[in-house]
């Protein structure tokens, strides 16, 4: 069964450092998303990406965050200057189209110290 692959599984970084989280989408999927889940809380939408541009972003997705698909396959989330409150599980999700099933990766646990 095709799956969304995320790397790394766990990233520890110092406050103020830049991190890049990577996602390999399912091959025929066209819509890409990042969500985050702070420990014990609900899953929150960060950003959606379609046709090489952001289609929507949440209030959480401020200027410190950026996304890109640099090589046409990997989909990345960059946090420029991490803060303690960025510590969370970050999930990449992909889908074939609107209002269709979104497949989630296993997540990257980001710990900012």
């Amino acid at each position, binding site marked *: 069964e095709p799956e*969304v692959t995320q790397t790394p599984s766990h990233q520890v970084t110092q406050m103020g450092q830049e991190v890049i989280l990577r996602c390999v989408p399912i091959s025929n999927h066209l*819509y890409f*998303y990042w*969500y985050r889940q702070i420990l014990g*809380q*609900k*899953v*929150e*939408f960060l950003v*959606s990406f*379609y046709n090489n541009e952001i*289609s*929507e972003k*949440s209030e959480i997705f401020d200027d410190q965050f950026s996304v890109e698909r640099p090589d046409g396959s990997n989909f990345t989330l960059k946090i420029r200057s991490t803060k303690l409150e960025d510590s969370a599980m970050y*999930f990449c*999700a992909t*889908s074939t189209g*609107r*209002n269709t*099933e*979104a*497949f*989630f*990766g*296993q*997540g990257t646990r980001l710990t900012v110290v």
Partner: protein
Amino acid sequence: QQQVKQSPQSLIVQKGGISIINCAYENTAFDYFPWYQQFPGKGPALLIAIRPDVSEKKEGRFTISFNKSAKQFSLHIMDSQPGDSATYFCAAITNFGNEKLTFGTGTRLTIIP
């Protein structure tokens, strides 16, 4: 108005019993309602989904009941098994090209022998 409210926060059910999780929403633009199942350390996985033109959808032991006028929907797990122990999230997507999932707060379900 974008929120999806979910209850209970946690639920303990005996093996063989019926697990019931409820969700409510305000935004009438929501038109796709998936339920996700999440095991510890894993990403959410789609369990079952419904559109508001039907009042019930059943897949195996899992049933969604949908009440459009009350803006409520619920997940019923029949003959609950220990393997069903997980966190369940209801979610919703709007019908005007906005692909993001708005998640409920989650229900931690524990099935006891």
